[in-house]
Structure formats: structure tokens, C-alpha cells
């Protein structure tokens, strides 16, 4: 029997529950739990099988990055910034580097513009490949994760070839990038994209036509369009609700204005629609990577000469540089007082609202077995909440 997807909007106000009545059970999901994304936890109040209240608890990964950055030289912060969102370090590197360049008045060479765009699209694909494994796994479909984590590893192989690092690359630095492409690298990129595209075709067949996945994900975690601005929702979570916003297109940074693509939007705005949209964005990333390889200049400088990093002072000023990461608006607010260290660096991660305000409200009324699937469908990374 086909389940009819229902779009239920949870109430804005928390219910006043008598936890001593014996009617409710308080249960912690996380910080160590297979159904949690990263090291965070949800304090759930359960009535029968249904969640009636939720509080997001973060802090397990707080490392004081923003405080540490105020006491280090501008360049010394690079090993810190990439660790703020582990599966996507390159967005941190780009936002921080671009902010410094803007404040210091540095223009980067065209080759660096293309290499940065390539790096960001490769990590977008890698991050989505890891995410889709988690999304399928949360609904008991472990095979998908085994396939896509392998595909992600192929992308990490490419990063190792390009930068020397698999997880943290520190490839995007102020003034450009750390190095040019090694011989044969672009050929490897195209070969890997062919392999991943074929695998995604299999994922689409096995996961998105699976009746269990459809029955459990359709109707789950419906985000009404009027929540988008109210909660500051961005990225695929907003686009699945029909909102055509993509900072790659809107801000037109790096080489994106020279690439042929359009933001992908949905209509239904539930967990199934969000996963479908992210799958489409994976195909889009593969297409963009192929476009970048085809259009990137083969020679030219890839880095501007910088002052000695040990004595580099950045003129006083402030800026906010944002980019479209896999989860939405990712940004760095950087303030300089003219010295050799930042006065303030604040990181805007999309999980800040998706994992706390949105998650706490969306989970009300959800079956306990679907909490993990709902959470993964929002694609949250706790480190960017805690910094």
C-alpha cells in the first residue's frame, strides 16, 4: 500500500510537558550514536514512539578556534581554519584567503581563480558522496554508503595528487594557490568523474526507486517556504523548497560566472526531495569540473607574491566573504585593526541554524526511528556551530 506523504508543520512554541507524569521518556541521541551526524547530541522527549520535544546540544568539538585566531599571525591561522568543517576544509580556506586578499588589496592570477574553483567543486562532490552514504544508511541502506565512500576516496586520491593531503589540503592560500596541477592530473580528474558518474547512476536506481526509502523519506521533515528567511535556511535545504538561491550564481565569485549552470530547485521540500536535489547537484558538480578542466588556462602564474608572512600586517578594516558550500551559505567575517593578527574572525556555518533552530522544531511529531534520517537530510556539521 502506498503511503501518502503528509506535510505536517510542527508548532513554533515548545509544549509545556510534565516530565514527571510518567507519560514521557527523556532519551539522548548522541554524542556517540550511529544515527547522529558528528559529535553532537539531541535530547529527545518521547511519547510512545513519537518525539514531542527536542534540544540540540553542541560543544563536544569546541576547540576555541575563533579565540585562537586572535592570537596568531594571519598566515599561522591556516592550519586552524581548514579544521572548522572537516569534510569541506576548502571552503574555509577560500573564505579566509579571499577576506585577507580583499582587506590587503591583493588580486590573484587567473590560473589561481580556476584552480580554486576546481578545488571547491571537487570537495563539494566528495562531501556530497559522504553525505549520501549517511542518508541511505540512516534508513538501513548500508550498501550505498559502501559505494559512495569508495567514490569519495577516489576524489581524495585526486586531492592527494594535487595538494599532498587527503583531508586537509591548505591548497588555497592568500595570493592564489599553493601549486600548479601536476602532469597528468587533469586526465585523472576526467577519468575519475566518469567512474563517479556511472556509480551515481547506480545509486539513483538502487536508492531513489527503493520503496522503503521512498515511504520513509517522503513527507519527512517538511520545511515550509516561509521558514527559509525566518530561520536563515540556505543551500539545498532552501532550494528544495523552491527558493532559487545559490551564492555561486548570485555572488558570482571565482570562475563561476564563466561556467554554464543554473541553480537546481525542488518543490516538495521534504527529506526525499532534499536528497534528490543533492543527487542532482552531484551531477552538476561533475559537469562543472569537466567545464573547468576544459576552460582552465594551461599556463600562467598561480600565485601572487606576498609580504613576509612573519611581518605581514593587514590594513585596518572589516569584510564578510561568503561562498556556497554543500549546505548553503558559508562565510568568514574578518576584522583587522592594522596589526599582524586578526582582531576578530567569526565563522558563519549553515549548520548553525539547520542543526539547532530548524532541527529542534522539525523533529517534533517525528517517529523516533526517523530522527537520524531527518537529521542527515538537513546535512549538518557540528564543528561549524562550535568553532
Amino acid at each position, binding site marked *: 500500500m502506498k503511503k501518502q506523504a503528509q506535510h505536517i508543520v510542527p508548532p513554533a512554541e515548545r509544549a509545556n510537558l510534565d516530565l514527571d507524569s510518567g507519560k514521557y521518556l527523556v532519551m539522548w541521541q548522541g554524542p556517540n550514536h550511529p544515527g547522529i551526524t558528528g559529535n553532537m547530541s539531541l535530547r529527545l522527549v518521547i511519547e510512545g514512539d513519537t518525539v514531542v520535544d527536542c534540544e540540540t546540544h553542541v560543544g563536544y568539538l*569546541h576547540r576555541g578556534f575563533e579565540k585562537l585566531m586572535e592570537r596568531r599571525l594571519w598566515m599561522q591561522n591556516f592550519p586552524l581554519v581548514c579544521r572548522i568543517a572537516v569534510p569541506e576544509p576548502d571552503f574555509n580556506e577560500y573564505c579566509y584567503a579571499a577576506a585577507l586578499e580583499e582587506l590587503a588589496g591583493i588580486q590573484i592570477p587567473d590560473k589561481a581563480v580556476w584552480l580554486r574553483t576546481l578545488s571547491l567543486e571537487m570537495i563539494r562532490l566528495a562531501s556530497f558522496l559522504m553525505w549520501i552514504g549517511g542518508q541511505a544508511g540512516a534508513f538501513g541502506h548500508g550498501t550505498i554508503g559502501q559505494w559512495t565512500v569508495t567514490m569519495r576516496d577516489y576524489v581524495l586520491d585526486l586531492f592527494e595528487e594535487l595538494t599532498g593531503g587527503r583531508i586537509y589540503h591548505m591548497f588555497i592560500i592568500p595570493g592564489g594557490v599553493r601549486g600548479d596541477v601536476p602532469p597528468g592530473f587533469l586526465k585523472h580528474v576526467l577519468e575519475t568523474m566518469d567512474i563517479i558518474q556511472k556509480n551515481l547512476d547506480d545509486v539513483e536506481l538502487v536508492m531513489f526507486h527503493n520503496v522503503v526509502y521512498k515511504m520513509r523519506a517522503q513527507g519527512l521533515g517538511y520545511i515550509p517556504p516561509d521558514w527559509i528567511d*525566518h*530561520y*536563515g535556511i540556505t543551500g539545498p535545504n532552501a532550494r528544495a523548497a523552491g527558493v532559487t538561491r545559490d551564492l555561486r550564481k*548570485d*555572488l558570482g565569485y571565482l570562475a563561476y560566472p564563466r561556467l554554464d549552470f543554473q541553480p537546481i530547485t525542488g518543490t516538495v521540500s521534504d527529506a526525499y526531495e532534499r536528497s534528490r536535489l543533492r543527487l542532482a547537484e552531484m551531477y552538476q558538480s561533475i559537469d562543472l569540473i569537466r567545464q573547468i578542466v576544459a576552460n582552465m588556462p594551461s599556463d600562467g602564474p598561480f600565485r601572487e607574491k606576498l609580504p613576509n608572512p612573519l611581518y605581514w600586517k593587514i590594513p585596518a578594516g*572589516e569584510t564578510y566573504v561568503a561562498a556556497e558550500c554543500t549546505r548553503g551559505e558559508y562565510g568568514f*567575517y574578518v576584522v583587522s585593526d592594522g596589526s599582524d593578527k586578526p582582531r576578530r574572525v567569526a565563522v558563519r556555518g549553515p549548520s*548553525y541554524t539547520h542543526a539547532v533552530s530548524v532541527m529542534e522544531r522539525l523533529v517534533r511529531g517525528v517517529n523516533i526511528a526517523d530522527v537520524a534520517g531527518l537529521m542527515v537530510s538537513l546535512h549538518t556539521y557540528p564543528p561549524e556551530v562550535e568553532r
Partner: protein
Amino acid sequence: MIKLATELAARYGSRGWHNQRPDLASVQIDLSRLHDALAWLKDNMGYTHLSFMTAIDNIERGVFTLTYTLRNHAWNDGKGHSLMIHADVDRSKPEVDSIHRLWGQAWTYQREMKEWYGIDFPGSPRVDEEFVLEGWEGPPMMRRDFDSLAYSDATYAERPGRVSHDPETYMKEKLYPEAEA
């Protein structure tokens, strides 16, 4: 943008409008008119998206400078425009009107600022609850006068087996002992 800057100044006494980029500007507003200005920008001028809120400890001037970054997605045919609103709050009595009724995620930022800077937002949901610093008993850690080394020395026990060296002296002793002689 000139029209917006002029109208914001006329209505709410804003000053120091600065265009950082064609799609990014900043402006200063008095704390007492901050909430109304934010509501007006949201309801009437299309700045419907709150990107983030944060604070800067300007200890030299005795103030925390709050930063509210709003975005108008529709401006310039969908290219968008971001506006950073700054407001100074007295460091000795940091209390600010809550904006949790304007944006649904604002309470989380306000809870963070209470914990990290000690800035209070009366009426904001769960503003007194711990956010990321579980069991923290020290002063707000993002304040410039918070001495993290002194706090660490006073709070945590010394772990035996760890020795600190002056790098210059240590290298000389280990690598070039004959130079010492």
C-alpha cells in the same frame, strides 16, 4: 544604496555608511534604535535574511561592538546585497534588546554571545543555558582581558612529565653544545 543610507540616517540616526564592496556595506546605529532599525530593514527594505550575529570586544573604547549581517536577496536582479549593522554596547553593563521575534535562529546567536562575551539579551529563549562551554566557570572566554594561560594554570592540575623549554636556548644546548663552551 545612497537612498537607503539616507533614509536609514533620517529614520534611525545611522552614521558612517561604508561601501566595502558593491554588494557589501556597513553602518553604525545607536543601541537604543537598533531593534527598530533591524525590524524596518527586514519588513520594508527586503533585508529578510539574517546571515549571522556576532560581537567584537573593543576593550580600548570600553564597548562591545555588535554586528548584525543582513542580506537582501532580491537587490540588483537577484545578485543580492549584504548590510553589516554595528551597534556599541557599554562593556560594564552589556544588555541588548533581543531580536528572537524577528528571526527564528537569533536566539542561538544571543545565547552564544551571552556565554562567550557576557552580553545579556533579556527575554531571549534559553539565553542563560550553556551553549558550547559545558561546565565552564571562568569569565566569558572571548573577552580580550580573559587571560587563558592564567586561567588554565589556576584551573587545571600540572601533568607530570611535561617540561617547557625556551626554543632558542634548547636548540643551542642540544644541537650546538660546543658553541656554549
